[in-house]
């Protein structure tokens, strides 16, 4: 007998409202219906009433975590229309902030994933390691999030030369801690049992669904906009694109952990570059924006962000289209969730690192009897934690 299990629109561990209706046969999910739009704010329409210089402040509020990626794609779209290059120092400054953002975003996800499978130690340690990254962002840009760093033609403020040693020190510590964390994840048999082979989304499906970011690279879909559509400093630094093959939750976690090392590598190169350039020239003067259109892309922590702008020569955009990576990545759940258990469904939907809300409410509806019961956040997490405990005991039994 098939039952429907609605998850959401408010859901544990996820940062924004979303609604999943799971069609389950026993514990097994057979189908899923996804409804988005619970926090639709009309940012695209709002941007048509802001000046070109105000829009970066608006689009960095598309996502609290990706608050450098969206302005980055926007300013690149305008610069694409204008056909201008920004000063070298500004290019490296942009990359530093963007990569610091990737570090704290990936660490945030790893912590949440640990919490959801019942590994609260992973959650607490990971967020402890994340904190110095936010401190550095505050010291260099003025804010932990919403940095207001980028503008059309360059950046709004410089990073003082005397701040560079502090950033380097933080990177050294983070590299050690991230190494520790990565090894712990790679070696833990319970994490293996909970995540390997769970929520598989393969390479061909990534192509068909337009999935990107760690979700796609975990399946071997070799796309990274930083390398494929290089902007600013990204063709002046060396880094590797991390790929795995299986496309399951485990590989998505591993890709994020290993990408942290690449981000550290990029930031070090950029810091070296700004040490070698004279402070001062961080933006070019931008006059009127002529009629035309432009496309800007940047690889956000969750996948590619695309901004398309259309100008009619006035002081505001005539149209701004935003492609947020979660828009395509969340759609992948209609393939990756069916076939798995309810206890794994939350983990799989979280594995694409979507933007959701933290207010929790889950209803279980028996379609044959009409019986409805509401599960709390604790219930859903309990289901997941019980499964982890069961696996841990089974593994301990095997070892003995």
């Amino acid at each position: 007998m098939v039952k429907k299990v609605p998850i959401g629109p408010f859901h544990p561990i996820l940062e924004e409202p979303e609604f999943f209706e799971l069609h389950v046969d026993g514990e097994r999910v057979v189908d899923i219906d996804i409804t988005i739009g619970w926090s639709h704010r009309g940012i695209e329409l709002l941007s048509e009433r802001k000046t070109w210089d105000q829009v970066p402040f608006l689009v960095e509020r598309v996502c609290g975590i990706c608050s450098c990626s969206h302005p980055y794609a926007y300013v690149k779209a305008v610069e694409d229309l204008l056909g201008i290059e920004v000063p070298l120092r500004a290019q490296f400054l942009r990359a530093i902030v963007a990569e610091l953002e990737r570090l704290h975003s990936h660490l945030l996800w790893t912590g949440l994933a640990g919490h959801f499978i019942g590994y609260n130690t992973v959650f607490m340690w990971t967020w402890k390691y994340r904190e110095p990254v936010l401190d550095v962002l505050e010291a260099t840009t003025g804010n932990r999030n919403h940095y207001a760093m980028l503008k059309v033609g360059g950046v709004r403020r410089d990073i003082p030369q005397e701040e560079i040693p502090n950033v380097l020190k933080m990177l050294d510590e983070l590299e050690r801690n991230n190494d520790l964390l990565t090894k712990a994840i790679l070696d833990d048999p319970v994490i293996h049992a909970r995540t390997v082979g769970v929520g598989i989304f393969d390479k061909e499906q990534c192509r068909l669904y337009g999935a990107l970011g760690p979700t796609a690279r975990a399946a071997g879909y070799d796309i990274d906009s930083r390398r494929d559509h290089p902007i600013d400093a990204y063709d002046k630094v060396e880094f590797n694109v991390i790929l795995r093959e299986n496309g399951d939750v485990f590989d998505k976690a591993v890709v994020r952990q290993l990408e942290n090392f690449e981000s550290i590598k990029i930031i070090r190169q950029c810091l070296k570059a700004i040490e070698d350039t004279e402070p001062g020239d961080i933006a070019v003067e931008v006059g009127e924006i002529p009629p035309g259109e432009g496309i800007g892309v940047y690889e956000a922590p969750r996948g590619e962000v695309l901004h398309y702008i259309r100008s009619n020569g006035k002081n505001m955009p005539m149209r701004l289209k935003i492609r947020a990576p979660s828009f395509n990545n969340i759609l992948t759940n209609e393939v990756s969730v069916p076939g798995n258990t309810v206890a794994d469904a939350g983990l799989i939907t979280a594995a694409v690192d979507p933007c959701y809300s933290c207010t929790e409410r889950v209803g279980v509806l028996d379609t044959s009897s009409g019986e409805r019961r509401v599960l709390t956040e604790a219930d859903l997490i309990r289901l997941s934690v019980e499964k982890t405990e069961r696996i841990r005991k089974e593994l301990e039994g095997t070892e003995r």
Partner: protein
Amino acid sequence: MEREEVKKRIAEKFGEKVKVAERSPRRIYVYAENDIWVDLADFVFNELDARFDTGAAVDDREGVEVMFFFPFDREHYYLTIKTFAKKPNPELDSISNIIPGAKWIEREIFEMYEVFFRNHPDLRPVLRADTRPKDFYPAKREVKDEHVPPRRRDDGDERADEVEGKPPAGQNP
């Protein structure tokens, strides 16, 4: 696939039905007529092996310009396919049956601009609240032109008008 080769193969296959414009070395725009729109997307995605990214729409007085972005990642450029759905009843064939990733963006364009995608598997609105009227398409130019933002607050405090720098109605110099 290199851009010159892509342009040549599109021109060979679709001839007069397409027009190609290049804004910069990394941006190609292809304007297609409605009847070959899906075939062109299929050709670019499956034959030329481009990646599907997303879509967008821009409202005009005469119709809605609908576009889909197809990057060629190894060659570092974006190809954008555009077509024009004429008003008063803008309609296009859906590409979702060829590219499942286009399902949601077509639903979004429908609910914002009232562009009806024929043969779409499930053209329910994707973003708006259930309580919003069914025939309300917020991004349509006609709707935006008619919508006058309220200037006064509900509490009867008319100083809000002064704060905005506009004198009350009837007192314009």
